[in-house]
Structure formats: structure tokens, C-alpha cells
């Protein structure tokens, strides 16, 4: 479904992604993990067309889309939940839902389409906030709205960039569960997730991005079999042990408190 082949991308002058290749089969969840600044969002944005790749191919359902305008890619059935929510600050929740409903696409591949009613069932909090503007929502509510916006576009390929950031634990769990369910109905998902635990929970494959390169890409059962390899990749062990307070000069050591 989604095939990324030796993709190079970056921002005016600086290359961020170096020959990234991934192959996501239809109906599976590809999780991507990696440290801050590794290039995860750049990867997602390249697929969505928001970052123009320098080289390499991106195929969605067999069609090469690299370099296309983002709205064309979106119309071919790609939904995005961007990092940092990016809801429209001056549109109400209801208006978001109207805009997100894509008139040119009828339904998801796996059965009935997303409707506003179904969304509000999944995310009831939004129902009480229909007349609130985007910038009047709490962080978590904005995240819910971003998810709703992507789903209502009836995507075949869903790009999730840390979709659970800022969601309360129970809701985050429900969203992860939903992602799994959706994949089983035929939706393809590219999921960026910081917490390895959660990536393993929903992902069918786990990839690790480091300085813009894929350094690890295995099916999830292999990861489960040998979790330490992955943990080492993410340098979780590098977390310092608790130690005695080490004051930062000028901060509190000589402060007059």
C-alpha cells in the first residue's frame, strides 16, 4: 500500500532523511520510533506532500506520489494527524467537522464510512464543544479534533504523528485500540510513537529512525522476542541513574532563596 524507496528529504539546504526505505502492506500498522529530531515528522510530512523530497520514490497503492501537491495526495486517500495538532484556531469544532468530511470520497475500504455521529461516539468530549473555536479547546481536546478531522476524510492511508500526545491515559489507550481495529478492517497506518511500549502494542512492524536513517525495521513478533535490542537502539539505558543533585551554575547554587 505504502512503499517508500530510498527517500531523501529535508529543509532548504539541510538533508534530514537519508535514503529511507519502508514497505507498509495494506491493513497493517507500521510504527516508527526514534529520538527527538531523528526525522520522524519529516518522513510523515514527505508522504503527505508537505515536505518535497529531493530524491527517492513514494508509492501509495502503486502510484508514485513524491513531489505531488499535498492536496492531490490527500484526495488520493491520505489522512494526517499532524504533530502539535494544528487545528484551525478560528474555526469552531462543528466547522472543522464540516470541512473534514470529504465530499469526494464515499467510504473507507473496510466497510461503513466515518460520520460525525460515529466520531462523536468515539470522542464524546467533542460533542459538548461543538461551538467552541479551535483555540479555546484544551490540549487534549485539540488532539481529539485533529484525529476526528483525519478520520472524517475517509482515508485509505492514515498518517499518525504522535496521536496520543496530550491525551489522558484512558483515552490514549482507546485511540490505540481504535488504530488496531481500523488496520484490521483494511486501513493502512503509519504511526509515529515515542513510547516504545505503546508502539509494540499496536504496531505490526516497528522501525527505528536515527539521524534520518532507518536503523532497524522488524515485525513486531521479533521485537517481542528480543526487546533488549530495540531498547538499546533507543538508548533507553542511557538514562542516567538517579544521583546526587548537581547544581547548575548561576541557577540555584548561588541563588539567594
Amino acid at each position, binding site marked *: 500500500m505504502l512503499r517508500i524507496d530510498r527517500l531523501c528529504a529535508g*529543509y*532548504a*539546504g539541510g538533508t534530514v532523511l537519508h535514503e529511507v526505505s519502508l514497505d507498509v502492506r495494506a491493513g497493517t500498522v507500521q510504527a516508527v520510533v526514534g529520538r527527538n529530531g531523528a526525522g520522524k515528522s519529516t518522513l510523515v510530512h514527505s508522504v503527505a506532500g508537505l515536505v518535497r523530497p529531493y530524491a527517492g520514490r513514494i508509492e501509495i497503492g502503486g502510484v508514485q506520489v513524491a513531489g505531488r501537491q499535498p492536496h492531490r495526495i490527500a484526495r488520493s486517500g491520505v489522512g494526517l494527524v499532524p504533530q502539535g495538532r494544528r487545528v484551525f484556531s478560528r474555526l469552531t469544532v462543528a466547522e472543522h467537522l464540516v470541512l473534514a468530511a470529504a465530499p469526494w470520497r464515499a467510504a473507507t475500504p473496510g466497510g461503513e464510512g466515518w460520520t460525525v455521529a460515529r466520531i462523536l461516539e468515539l470522542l464524546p468530549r467533542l460533542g459538548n464543544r461543538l461551538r467552541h473555536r479551535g483555540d479555546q479547546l484544551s490540549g487534549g481536546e485539540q488532539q481529539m479534533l485533529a484525529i476526528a478531522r483525519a478520520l472524517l476524510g475517509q482515508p485509505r492511508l492514515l498518517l499518525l504523528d504522535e496521536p496520543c500526545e496530550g491525551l489522558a491515559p484512558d483515552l490514549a489507550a482507546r485511540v490505540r485500540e481504535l488504530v488496531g481495529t481500523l488496520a484490521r478492517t483494511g486501513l493502512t497506518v503509519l504511526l509515529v510513537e515515542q513510547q516504545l511500549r505503546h508502539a509494540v502494542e499496536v504496531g505490526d512492524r516497528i522501525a527505528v529512525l536515527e*539521524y534520518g536513517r532507518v536503523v532497524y525495521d522488524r515485525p513486531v513478533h521479533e521485537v517481542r522476542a528480543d526487546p533488549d535490542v530495540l531498547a538499546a537502539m533507543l538508548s533507553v539505558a542511557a538514562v542516567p541513574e538517579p544521583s546526587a543533585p548537581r547544581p547548575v551554575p548561576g541557577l540555584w547554587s548561588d541563588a539567594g532563596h
Partner: protein
Amino acid sequence: MRRGAVRALRRGVAAMVVAALVLAPWTVDDYTVALLARTLALGLVAVSVALLTGVAGLPTLGQTAPYAAGAYASAVVGSHLSDVGLVHLAVAAAAGAALAAVTVPLVVSARGVVLLMITLAVGELAVTVVGRWRSVTGGTDGLAGVAASRPLWGLPVLATDRARYLYTLVVVAALVGVVLLVLRTRVGLLLRAGRDDEARLRAGGHRVAVHVAGVHVAAGAVAGAAGSLLVVAQQFVSPADFGFDTSALLLLGVVIGGTASVGGALVGAALVVAARDWLFGVLPGQAPLVLGLAFVAAVYLLPDGGRRPPVRGRLLPTVPARRPAPESPTPTGVRA
């Protein structure tokens, strides 16, 4: 490495421009020298516009007000009290600063287009006052016959175009130097931070209103000093020098020169004003058409609207392994 090269290149260009400016009066005719002197005065106003618009993110169309205050103060002092240029400059800067200070309550909390409209109103009101206060300003026809001044006590009066130009050049260079030096201190840092996100600055404990008021008064003083130079350069002031079109051209010149860059503003505004003045002479009747097309072309020709990298001196930051891009996304330079 490339960073060093770019900086060297920029220094080289700047040095060449300065050398050309110093040598100009001996190489070109009186008309051009007179034109240059006027242009330098306007360039100094542009510096004050850039200070507000680009560095502090407070776009303005009203710098003609302190500019006019400085010009008239300088002309009045020149014809009644003293013929010493330094005195004129001081008085003019004080007048500009005072006028800016008076308008501070209007501008402290406004941002973006709203601020643009408020400053536009201030500029227009200033011109109206100038046009009607006939006993001091000579009314809409202006104040002619301003006596020539001498730069300092004991020096000869500025009688030729060349002398007037050199005086203007020295003053502009000195004032721009001061502005650049001050911007290298934490003042510049705070102004740029305020342009990016003011609420964050406030949350950090900074008195944003004080910064805004301060930069307004400082810009007013610079514009006032420029007013004094205008009087020297053309020995005449009238409300027409401070109309809306002047404000608009200054702002456009600053945009062409790269909003946040003080030197760029000087060059950009100088180019725009010189182009206009020159076109009115050589292409009678067609000047607006050509100028308009030139603006359109400028937007396309200057790769990024002439914007310099938003962070001075750090064109290409070196980062281990993770390489960020050298170009910024879109600092708008305008507070929302």
C-alpha cells in the same frame, strides 16, 4: 567555512559601498550629490522604520511624524537660535523622541495591521498640524529660506552641495553605527524575542510594554535627527515631505532591504527613494508606472524579498550529525 566566506563577502560589499559614498562628491555632478544627501536623510528615517518594523516587529507608517517634528524643530532653531548643526541634531532628535513619547499610549498595546493604521493616523495628524500651524511651520507651502548651518562651532557653514552631503554622510554613518552597536547588546535580543512571541517574553518576566515604549522613543529620536539632515540637505521643509506616500515608500524600501536588517533598510529605502526622484526627472509622467513595475520585479528578483537570514552572523549554524536547514521557515516580522 561558508559562513566565514559569506560574512567576508558582506563586509566587502559594505566596505565598497562606504568607499563609493565617501568618494561620490568628487566623481559625480552636483545634482547627484544633492540627490544623495536627501536620500541619505530618508535612509536614516528608514533605519528607524526598520528598527520598529523589522527588529521589533512593530510595523509603522508613522515615522514621518517624528521626522517632521525633527525637521521643523531644526529649521526653527536654525533660523532663530543657533546655526550649529550639532545643536540642530540634538534638538531635532529630542523633538522626535518627545513626539514619539507622546504617542506611546496609542501604540503600546497595538500590534500588526492595527498598529499600522494607528501610526498612519499619527502621521496624517502630524502633517495636518504642520499644515495648519502657519506661524511656526509656514503652512502647507512650507518654510523656505532656512539659513545654512555649520557642523560645529568654529567650522565654516555648509555652502556647497558637497559640504552638505559630507556632513549628512558623517552623521548618518555615526547614528547607524550607534544603532547597530546597541542592537548587538541584549536590547537587540529582547526586541527580536518580542517580535517572535510576546506572551512568552511576558511569561518570562520581561516588561514588554517598556521595551515597546523604549524602541518607539529611540526610533523617534533617530527619525528626528534625520529630519534635521533633511533641512540641511534641501534648505526647505514643507508638509509634502512627510505625506503618506513618503511613509509608504519608506516601508516598501525597508521591505526590499530586508525588514530586520538595519543596513539593508538604509540601502533599500535609498534605492526606492533615489529611483523615484530620478525617475521623476528622466521619465516625466511615466515614473509611477516604472516604479510600480520595479516593485513587482523586486519581489521576484530578490530571492527572498531581500530578507537576510533572521539571525545575524549565523548564516549556517554547525550542528553535529543532525543538520537543520539554514533557512528559516517564515518569520513574518510582524506581530500578529
